[in-house]
């Protein structure tokens, strides 16, 4: 029983944290006033770039090196960041419909990454394959604290990326709520005209916010590639980006409440698969478990959407002439 609870916590945390960092990215973008349905595509593109770098470095450096892992994280953030500029450009400069732009960016990411994965594998590595194998990242256990019952599970078999995510989340929180830039960003989402009048640059702030969301989503995608999938392939598009969106809507566009939403998703998922395992049910039942986070999202949204207050100017194109 204790073992089961421990593994629920361990698996739950390794799913929750990438989801959480992606939700923070979404919060940045949406608090600045840009609807971001592109998270799914951004995390996939980030994971693709990171996995490609890790794959190349892994071949050069051999299997034991830790360098590919950290470089993959870095390049995943870069890749997500650069790709997100497409969404930002469409929404801000070309004034496209932000919902459509987000969906388009997703579809293009799926098409591009699965095409490029195949094309690169065939031409550069000479082996027809639709994936980059990465393997599961190493894990570490903090000595001492991990012996505490139940609480210790939070320090057992931790992926290194979980630490990276927590650091990134704290920094992101500080910037959003405690700096002049964060204040301006949040104002852009509620009253862009006021920011403009105060001498701020709405377009630039929003552009940066979308790029931050791209970088954080890319990081999340890479984490999924190194844990759940153990590879990069089109399997990376499991809809976790949309789950993150549901997470921050449920969390009312604030960082800490969103963490709780993500925790619920993560633990629902890991508890479900633990139950299937413990009851010895056939593997087809794992499909039913896969539904849990999605169904839970819908049910929670039914209860919480009504009282939610989205940023006032969310999804609106800022037009100076209308001030």
């Amino acid at each position, binding site marked *: 029983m204790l073992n089961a609870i421990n593994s629920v916590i361990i698996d739950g945390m390794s799913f929750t944290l990438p989801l959480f960092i992606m939700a923070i990215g979404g919060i940045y973008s949406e608090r600045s006033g840009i609807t971001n*349905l592109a998270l799914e595509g951004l995390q996939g593109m980030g994971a693709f770039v990171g996995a490609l770098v890790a794959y190349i470095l892994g071949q050069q450096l051999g299997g034991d090196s830790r360098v590919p892992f950290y470089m993959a994280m870095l390049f995943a953030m870069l890749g997500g960041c650069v790709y997100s500029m*497409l969404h930002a450009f*469409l929404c801000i400069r*070309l*004034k*496209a*419909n932000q*919902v*459509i*732009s987000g*969906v*388009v960016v997703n*579809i*293009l990411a*799926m*098409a*591009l990454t*699965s*095409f490029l994965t*195949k*094309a690169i594998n*065939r*031409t550069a590595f000479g082996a027809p394959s639709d994936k980059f194998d990465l393997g599961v990242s190493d894990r570490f256990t903090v000595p001492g604290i991990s012996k505490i019952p139940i609480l210790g599970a939070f320090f057992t078999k931790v992926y290194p990326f979980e630490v990276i995510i927590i650091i990134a989340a704290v920094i992101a929180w500080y910037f959003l709520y405690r700096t002049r830039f964060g204040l301006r960003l949040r104002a852009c989402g509620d009253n862009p005209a006021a920011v403009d009048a105060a001498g701020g640059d709405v377009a630039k702030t929003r552009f940066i916010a979308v790029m931050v969301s791209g970088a954080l989503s890319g990081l999340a995608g890479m984490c999924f590639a190194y844990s759940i999938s153990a590879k990069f392939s089109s399997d990376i598009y499991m*809809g976790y980006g*949309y789950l993150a*969106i*549901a997470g921050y*809507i449920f969390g009312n566009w604030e960082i800490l409440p969103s963490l709780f939403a993500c925790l619920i998703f993560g633990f629902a998922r890991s508890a479900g698969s633990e139950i299937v395992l413990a009851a010895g049910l*056939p593997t*087809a*039942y794992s*499909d*039913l478990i*896969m*539904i849990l986070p*999605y*169904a839970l*999202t*819908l049910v929670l*949204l*039914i209860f919480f*959407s*009504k009282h*939610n207050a989205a940023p006032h100017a969310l999804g609106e*194109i800022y*037009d*100076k*002439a209308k001030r």
Partner: protein
Amino acid sequence: MNQRSKNFLKVAVISVLLSLLAGAVVILILGKNPLSAYYNLLQGCGLAPKAKYGGSQSQLTDLSSYIDYWTPMIFAALSCAFAMKAGLFNIGISGQMLTAGFIATITVGYAENLPGPVAKILVVLIGAAAGMGVGALIGFLKYKFNINEVVSSIMLNYIAKYIISFFIQMYFIDPVSRQSRNITDAARLTFHQVDVGGYKYDLPIGFILALIATFVVKFVMDKTVYGYDIKAVGLNRTAAKYAGIRVGRGIVSSMAISGLLAGIAGVTYYLGYFSSIQPKVLISTGFDAIAVCLLGNSEPVGILVASFLIEIISKGSAYMSSQAGLESEIASVVTGLILLASACNAYFLGRMQRRQDRKHPALLSAAVATSADSGGSAQVKNSPEAGKGKKV
């Protein structure tokens, strides 16, 4: 055709050409001949003759198979357009197609002893009802609980995908093909491999339905009070409410009709083009339908043309892949690029409008009236001079 539609057509043609050009550059980089690759696309759809054909096959065989493949896309894109007119975005078309296809398969598809015509009519009705149910649910969640329809339909997509995969794997699996068991021929909406004069053809009934549906949707949109209400809700919800239009009814019913069309798309796909369902797969038709809808300006006739084009790329990619040795995914990249170009068409339309305004100041008053209803994408200018130097 008024000036706005002409402009739109121009932008659409340019965006398709640019996307094909970008695809050609990629094919060149991979060291293949883009022209022959694109010609392969046409050959794969029976629109150009292949070098040689197998026994009892001809160019018309390929063409009939292409029309069979094209049919679900017409319904799916109409579904997307109907929601789009009401200002809603139905990204759950694939899930609605799957739900409708699955329910029709297990109810009518596996029923023995049903006469063909009855079974086929039942399949269409059940598919339409199933899709309508899912669509109405999304509309209801949007209206009643303020849940963004994009998020809820994506959640329903995944829920449908996994639940249906569970049931297929538990109860309806064919151990050899790893798909659901084949449906009876009576229930199938396509007369599969019909022998006419020594050649075999696939004759889809759904295609006739699709043409009818195209004109029914056009009629409802352009000529009825209901269509007017829906468009008013789509353009400005608050204004529609103050004009006495029941916004809630508009949202739920337009989403239900969108789901209905998606449901018929589902049965023409799973019980027409195919006769089984692959578990754990959500087909891309529902997403490509968005590209078709944007490219066709959400107009039924535009959709007919746009879907014809997009489906050539999609269907022909398999033949191109086998002939040119290119990854068939290049097709979805080109579709994605067309989608990308279509997403910014509002911007280019606005620019075009402004340039025309400068050239013909006399037309300006009319142009101001049309650009004012285009939802902020085109800027309203007071005089031709004002538009010149100002950059936004």
